[in-house]
């Protein structure tokens, strides 16, 4: 099946969700995870603009301009959901109540350092948003990202080159070719796609890899990528 597309990465991350968890899904790729929660599980999705228990995107005829997520998408409230104000929403985040936050990233270091807020485009203003609060205080930070830059450079590094979002926070990384745990001993590969050898994966990664004893094959069902 080969390299995972962005929706397949979201699918793979969502397979690790558990029943009753409180999860915050970052803008971009991560929000798609909510489409792939395993049948029978009830997951509570938090959007940092205050929706606790967010449902799927609103159907066009039901879209409500006041019911939006942190990315301005028109969404719904799931059964049992509610809305709190931003001060409380971030009190929830900072207070360590989020089980998992799934975030996009530019770079992740082998010590868990995360860089995802400032891509250093000259003269463009900073875009901090809620990433620093989420990265610093969620019980677990999972990252979804392409394994390499468009020019083939590594995004998994010994040390980040871009400004940090939070030090030592990332627990797991889902890429288009591998699932990697961040441990005290650095990156540990949990799964890798069949088409990429261990040596090739290491060559595409900027820090030493270990491979879990139970290291498996990364597979995802056919899902069309978003355009």
């Amino acid at each position, binding site marked *: 099946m080969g390299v995972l597309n962005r929706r397949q990465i979201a699918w793979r991350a969502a397979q690790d969700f558990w029943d009753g968890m409180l999860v915050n899904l970052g803008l971009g790729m991560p929000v798609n995870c909510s489409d792939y929660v395993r049948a029978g599980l009830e997951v509570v999705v938090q959007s940092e603009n205050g929706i606790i228990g967010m449902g799927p995107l609103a159907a066009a005829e039901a879209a409500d301009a006041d019911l939006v997520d942190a990315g301005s998408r028109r969404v719904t409230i799931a059964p049992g959901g509610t809305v709190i104000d*931003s001060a409380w*929403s971030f009190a929830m985040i900072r207070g360590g109540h989020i089980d998992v936050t799934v975030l996009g990233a530019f770079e992740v270091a082998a010590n868990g350092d995360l860089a995802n807020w400032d891509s250093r485009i000259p003269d*463009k203003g900073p875009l901090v948003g809620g990433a620093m609060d989420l990265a610093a205080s969620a019980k677990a930070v999972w990252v979804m990202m392409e394994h390499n830059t468009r020019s083939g450079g590594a995004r998994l590094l010994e040390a980040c080159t871009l400004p940090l979002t939070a030090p030592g926070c990332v627990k797991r990384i889902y890429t288009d070719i591998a699932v990697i745990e961040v441990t005290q001993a650095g990156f540990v590969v949990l799964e890798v796609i069949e088409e990429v050898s261990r040596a090739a994966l290491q060559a595409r990664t900027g820090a030493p890899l270990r491979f879990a004893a139970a290291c498996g094959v990364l597979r995802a069902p056919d899902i069309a990528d978003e355009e």
Partner: protein
Amino acid sequence: MAIDKRVGSAAAAVSDVRDGATVMISGFGGAGFANDLVLALRDRAVRGLTLIVNSATHPLSFTHTLIEAGMVAKVICSAARGRGKGLSAFEQLWKDGKIELVALPQGTFAECIRAGGAGIPAFYTPSGYGTDLTLGKETRRFGGRDYVLEEALVADVALVRGDVADRFGNMTFRYAQKNFGPAMATAAKLTIAEVRAVQDAPIAPELVELPGVYVNRVIVAGGV
């Protein structure tokens, strides 16, 4: 005299905002922007404002019109990036050194405002520790973890969007419209609310989301 916080127009509601004022503006994620009040403020053409607003550039907010009109000296926000590759008016002014920018993590931004309304002058937060954004800020260790000291934000005026208000200034918010409005209303000397509808009858106690004691003036939004 019965309490009645209703004012006839957005223009009247902002008529005493002065040069150099610090102004909080609600809104996030496309909801809850106090756009009628922002446009009325723009028409006053005051100068040297400090804006405390989550995003300096959100396309559904009219905050950018204040910046483009040259009324703004400083922006305190969590998002200041214009869309697209070109520079927004804000980014151009910032690049030229004509506008001062303070960027905060969104949770710190929210908590600083909440602290401003709650009589807390400063607090410690883990957000932003170990990042460029908090370089030079005081840090301290509590229980084996490192934190940054952040100071409260207060304002002369808060412009807040809600759904319904009553004559007491009690307010409700629709869904994600809530965002920064309630906290901003507590942190400003003068809070002006724009709502979809006002009613004579008091909002039921259990439905009030922001007590009217925090709200000074209420206008009905014209649906900008």
